[in-house]
């Protein structure tokens, strides 16, 4: 990675983290999603194909990682930007499963850094309340931007951008030292790809915990499952079937609700 590429990726790590300057809707919930992050890294490093091949499984794995206030709060942007960049930098000459395995491991490392940095910024933001209280006491409406945005973002930027630059730079330095595709023994690649494939169940399991609200819901989940396994449909085809089913469900349920209301 060139210096400009490192800086750009680190900048996006910051933008995609919780509470960046562009807001959580554009930042955390869009740029921070692995699907989008992989695309951005692909554009920056000029290899959209590889980026997306590893980005899609990462997105499945981290599908359940959505709520900043919830139990799974960490800066996901670290995990994916660094994971995808690692797959492109170290995965030269590897097949798809090997590259995905690499991405999973580096996403784990990035995720740990992200968790530490999230807790750090959460603690460093605390004293800002004193500044806000002082400005409020003086009725300085124009200065409320100072504690919230100026100071809050200085902390946020330092906690995200700087560590990301360090991690990405050391990755670049390491990749120049050796050819990793030949260095990593075969059984490690096998273990990594098995791990990657199984990790997808984590994202799906957490999503199911949001969606399964009634007992019979499990049958609807199974319907989607067997459309792929028995009927051999692609996920896109199943998505179309799902949309049709949802519309029919809505029409049926709302006409039933109307009848009850009348």
């Amino acid at each position: 990675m060139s210096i400009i590429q490192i800086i750009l990726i680190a900048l996006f790590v910051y933008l995609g983290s919780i509470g960046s300057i562009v807001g959580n809707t554009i930042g955390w919930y869009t740029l921070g999603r692995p699907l989008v992050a992989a695309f951005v890294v692909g554009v920056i490093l000029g290899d959209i194909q590889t980026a997306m091949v590893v980005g899609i499984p990462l997105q499945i794995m981290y599908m359940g990682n959505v709520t900043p206030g919830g139990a799974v709060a960490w800066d996901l942007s670290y995990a994916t930007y660094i994971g995808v960049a690692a797959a492109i930098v170290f995965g030269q000459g590897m097949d798809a499963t090997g590259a995905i395995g690499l991405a999973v491991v580096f996403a784990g490392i990035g995720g740990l850094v992200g968790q530490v940095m999230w807790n750090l910024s959460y603690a460093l933001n605390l004293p800002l309340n004193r500044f806000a209280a002082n400005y409020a006491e003086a009725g300085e409406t124009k200065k409320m931007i100072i504690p919230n945005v100026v100071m809050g973002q200085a902390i946020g930027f330092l906690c995200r951008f700087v560590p990301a630059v360090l991690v990405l730079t050391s990755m670049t330095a390491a990749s120049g030292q050796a050819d990793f595709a030949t260095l990593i023994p075969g059984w490690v690649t096998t273990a990594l790809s098995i791990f990657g494939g199984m990790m997808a169940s984590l994202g799906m399991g957490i999503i199911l915990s949001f969606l399964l609200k009634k007992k019979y819901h499990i049958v609807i989940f199974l319907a989607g499952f067997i459309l792929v396994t028995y009927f051999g449909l692609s996920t896109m085809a199943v998505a179309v079937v799902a949309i049709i089913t949802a519309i029919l469900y809505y029409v049926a349920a709302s006409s039933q609700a109307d009848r009850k209301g009348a």
Partner: protein
Amino acid sequence: MAKKISEKTLKKSFRTWFFWNGCSQQAESMLGMAFGQAMAPVIDELYDTQEEKAAALQRHITLFNTEAQVGSICNGIVCGLEEANANGQCTPELISSVKVALIGPTSAIGDSLWVATIIPILLTICLSISQASANMLWLGPVIYMLVYPIGTAALSWFLFKLGYKSGLEGMQTFMATGRLNLLTDTMTVLGLIVVGALTASFVSCTLPIQIVKDVYDATTNTILESQVLFNADSVLNSIFPQILPLSLTLGVYGLYAKKKWSPLKLMGLILVLACLLTFVGYATGFYA
């Protein structure tokens, strides 16, 4: 003359909230400072003396938390209440207690409906779009990058205005119509089918046990080397295709939802299982 917040100020307040609601999040006041900053232009317009401004700012930098995108309805409601207060029709105590009361329901709706349902469903649809063709892998993220922020911004601004115009009654009617529940149920049906398909396509787990022997073929009088006599994985899959990925996913779901395991703990469990399966696979010659 009755005081009124201009459209321009409302937009400014909304923009401040929409972009900077999470800028200074911490454990003491959560999104309090961001709420205070978003209220600043409104306070500036409604109150004249420095004392009034100070009092208003001070009550808005206190603890506040919500799911900020759907929670913009709180900002709208509070803007309406501040306007009433400036006209002497409301009290600061009422504003503060309404604010605190709004934290629970708006967080619940925002987190469960928007964040935990809409985002994953939109992501799964975009994933399927990317999956549809190897040359169009970029299409999914591009669609997500357009649809999600624009749609959310529109909803957020709509809820902000709804809160400002119709206040608490507006929120009650919005929550009580039953349409919201129906919409959630519909999205759940959609989501479950797609998640089922994604589970089938992406979760992989094989039972790497096989018996390989050299077989003597009597008809040709030769020894056929390394014939697979028994493959546990294909036996399982002939009973129910992909039964292992399905059981793994449901198992993870059970541990996460029912036993309250943390994602990190589950990740550790999966790592151990993966190492175990790799070892078994090499031991039985499944992976060469």
